[in-house]
Every structure is written in C-alpha cells, then in structure tokens.
C-alpha cells in the first residue's frame, strides 16, 4: 500500500495549494458552527417566554435549567442530523474533484502506467478525501460543542457532547464519510465531468435533509434507535458501494472512456 500513501501525500500537497477548494471545504463547516451558536446566543438574550414554552412542547424537552437548557436541547437535537451532512458532503467534494481532476489534467494514463495498482489508487484517493473531511467534521463538532457550552457556562446539567452527538461524531461520521467517498468514486467512474459527479453524488444528502426538515417541523423525533439503525444502514451501504467502486474503477474502462 506504499502507492496509496504516495497518492495521499500528493493529494494533500495539492489541497494545500488549492485556496478555492479549501475555502469551499471550510465554508460549510463554518456555517454549521456559526449559525447554531449565534442562534442560541441571540435567543438566550432575546427570546420571549412563550417561544421557550413552544419549543419545550414541540420537541418534548424537559428543561429544569430554564431557557438555556431548552435552547441547547432543541439545537442539539435538531442540529445533529444536519451536522451529519458534513462527513458525507466533504469527501464528495474532495474525491469527485480529485478523480475528475485526473481526467481533466489527463494524468490518469501516466498514473496507470506506473506499477501502482488500481486498488492502491482507490485507497489513496479515498484516504485523501475521508481523513481531512473527518478531521474538519470533528473540529467543527468540537467548536460547536465548545461554543454552546461557553454560552451556557454553568447553566447546563450536562454539557455537550451528549450521547447522540458522541455517537454521531465517533461512529456515524466515519461511516458517512466512507459512504460519501465511495459514492463519489462510483459516480466519477461513470460520469465524465467532475462537477456533474459532485452534483450527482451530493444528491445523496437529500434524504438526510428531508429527515431534518421533518424533525424541525416536529413531526418525528430522531432518537437513539434511529441513529443505531442509521449506522447499520450506512455500514451496509459502505460495503456495497466500496465493492462497486473497486469493480467499476477498472483500468481499461477508465482509459477508454476518459479520453
């Protein structure tokens, strides 16, 4: 797997030198942290008492610690599924760009002419997409939890991250990052345009977004059972997609299609 590590090293060097890509990778996590923290800070000062009662009733939050407890409870509950878009979306952004970029720069043939195996290329590209995405997700999660805890200083019974957030970051995020990456590899091996591959692969976040909207509307409540099932489904999808990616990322098909 030495070839895979060399590919990771090169991808990281390229990423460091791509300000536009870095900016687009960091803007979504920045928004994912700034929006809820800002919202909690503003509501903590400005929300009328009836809004607090409404939130308590809508999401079934028991908050013995007053307004901040209700706000943090509502945000933590609703923001987690939205936050899980990050580990899906970021690898899609990186992997589709990296694989599509090989086609656009016509570097694929020289790469395939080296002794590096196709599997090493897939592993290298995948690590280069999954690892930075996960790091950014975890840093964003730490900033989110830290920001909320700071706002609520001493007024929360249990600071964030709570159980679902820990499960989301440590179990779901890696599984979803693998899913997003494998989806990008699969789509990129069939679609010739990097942007089209990004857009198509990014469509996979839509069901998650739908769930978020339904939960915010108070129609469902995503609890531990949902997250456990979601993790199992994501793991199964990972296995299937990785098998498909290895099968479709075929030397001959890539060389004859990607001209």
């Amino acid at each position, binding site marked *: 797997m030495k070839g895979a590590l060399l590919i990771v090293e090169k991808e990281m060097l390229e990423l460091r030198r*791509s300000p536009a890509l870095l900016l687009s990778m960091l803007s979504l996590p920045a928004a994912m942290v700034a929006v809820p923290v800002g919202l909690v800070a503003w509501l903590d000062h400005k929300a009328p008492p009836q809004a607090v009662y409404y939130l308590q009733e809508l999401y079934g939050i028991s908050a013995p610690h007053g307004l901040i407890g209700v706000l943090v409870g509502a945000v933590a509950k609703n923001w987690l599924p939205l936050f899980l878009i990050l580990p899906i979306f970021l690898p899609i952004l990186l992997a589709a760009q990296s694989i599509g970029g090989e086609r656009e*720069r016509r570097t694929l043939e*020289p790469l395939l*002419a*080296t002794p590096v195996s196709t599997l090493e290329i897939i592993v290298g590209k995948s690590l280069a997409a999954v690892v930075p995405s996960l790091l950014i997700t975890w840093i964003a999660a730490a900033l989110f939890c830290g920001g909320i805890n700071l706002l609520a200083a001493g007024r929360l019974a249990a600071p964030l991250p709570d159980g679902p957030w820990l499960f989301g970051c440590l179990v779901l995020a890696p599984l979803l990052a693998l899913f997003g990456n494998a989806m990008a590899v699969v789509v990129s091996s069939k679609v010739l345009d990097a942007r089209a591959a990004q857009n198509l692969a990014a469509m996979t976040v839509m069901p998650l977004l739908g769930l978020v909207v339904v939960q915010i509307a108070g129609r469902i409540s995503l609890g531990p059972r949902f997250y456990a099932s979601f993790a199992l489904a994501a793991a199964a999808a990972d296995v299937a997609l990785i098998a498909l990616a290895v099968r479709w990322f075929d030397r*001959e098909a890539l060389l*004859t299609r990607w001209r």
Partner: protein
Amino acid sequence: MPAILVEGISKSFAGRPAVEAVSFSVEAGEVFGLLGPNGAGKTTTLRMLAGLFAPDAGRAVVAGCGIEPRRDAGPALRRKVGLLTEHPGFYDRLDAGENLIHFGRLYGLGRAAARERAGRLLDRFLLAPHAHKPFAALSRGMKQKLAIARALLHEPDVIFLDEPTVGLDPEATREVRAVVSELRREGRTIVLCTHDLDEVERLCSRAAFIATRLLAVHPVAASEARRARIDLEAPCAAAGPALRRFGTVREEGLRLQVELADGASIADLVSALVGAGARVAAALPVRDPLEDAYLMLLADARSRGLLS
C-alpha cells in the same frame, strides 16, 4: 531474443475491433515506428504492450515480461517500460521537479533516489532552471520533454513514445526529436507511435504500418541506400554503361537514377564514374519514398474495409 515480440494480439472495445492479430518484433536497441492514421489502433497496441490493459487474444513478451490475454500484465512489466503518453499529463499545482519526484516514487524509487534522478533528467533536458515553476507555466515543448524525462526516470528497458511531437510548434518538435535521437544513440529500445512519416524517416530503423491489422513492416534506414541520384557536370556517354553492373540505371540528361543492386553503394558508383572519365557534380542517396508505401497500404486497407 528480441526486446519486444508480439504474436497476434487483438483487442476489441464494445464488439468493435481496435487491433486485430498484430505481430511484429523489435530488437534491443532498435527504434521502431508504429505508423497508421488516427483510429488505426496504434495507441491501443502501445497500451497493451505497456501493460495498461490486456489483449483479448494473442500474446507478447516485452523486456522479458509476458503479456497474456485477459490478464493484467502487472507491476513487473510496468516497472520495465517507460511510456510517453499522447498528452503530457502532470499535476498543475506541483512544480516540474515535484511532479517528476512524485512519479519516480510511484515507480518504486526511494525519496532520495527519485530526487537525484529527477535532478539529473532536468539537467539533461535543460529543464533545471524551470524545476520550480508550476507545470502549468511551462511551454508545450518543456512539458513534452518533462514527460519524456518521466518515461526515463526508472531507467526502463523499453520506451514507448505515443505521438511525441503532435501539436508542438516547429521549435519544440525539433527539441523533442533531438531528445529521441539522443536516446537512439544511447542504444535504447524505443517504439515510436506516430502518423508523421517524416518523424519515422528521421528516427526509426523500421516501421510497422497498422490499420487495425498489421499491413507491413517496412525497413526505413535500409531503404535509404536502395536508390541513388548522380548529377554529372558534363555529358559522358560511358557513364551509364559503367554503372550497369551496380544496378538498373535510368539516364535523364545529366542526371542518372540508379536502383542499387544488393551490396552496391554510392561510393562504388562514384568510383566507377570517375574511372569512366565522368565528372561527378553530386551523388545523393534517394530514400525509398515511405510516403508512397504508406499511402498505397492505406488505400489497400480502405478497400478491405479496415479503415473508414
């Protein structure tokens, strides 16, 4: 044992034959041309021989590594061959030196060895002053020379060059041809894939004409001595008869065209003419027109439905 031995390799894509039962051999140290129009299967042949994908049928041996139908030739073959792809294909955000080092390491060189060889090749191809420029900032000729340098990084036994001068301006074309000539002088085994007849005449000793199938293998260098043109300063009745023992002679005023018999040389002609009292103004080898042979073979291929 030739450096490359190809026996009846075939390849189809989606049921359409790209290469059909092509056979030829290339001796070690030979520069061998693969000639044919666009879509004739030259690049497909090259890719099979460079281990990028397997043939559907037939077999080949390249630098001692076997190529079998429907089986990946594996990293062993790819380590022994260097491939110049039709497009240089480097990473834009890496500079010229970083690109070479990266590919050197992918070919299995350690970091220090890759750096040392990249530096040596950059020097050799006069690219050292541009080593820290981003790849995108290099001229087309420089990019192509960098790609040739990449094909040599791991010191391969066989080098495949796919259209090395296509799309280059005359200056860059000359630079790239000079590099190939230098490699030829070093005794490297090179397969040059092109549709440029002039390039084949300048660089190759033999050329295979391909139009899906192998049409012919034509000696290029050997053909140079098969005809000669002699210009006399003044008419000489004895000149024609004096040359007849060296081949077929056609007299056109002061010009004599000689189809040389086996073993005869231009020096023999000049010496016979001087002996016969003729005053020789010029004696030049006339190459067998590769272009004529090429066009004839293409016309034949079209009539057989091998080309559209």
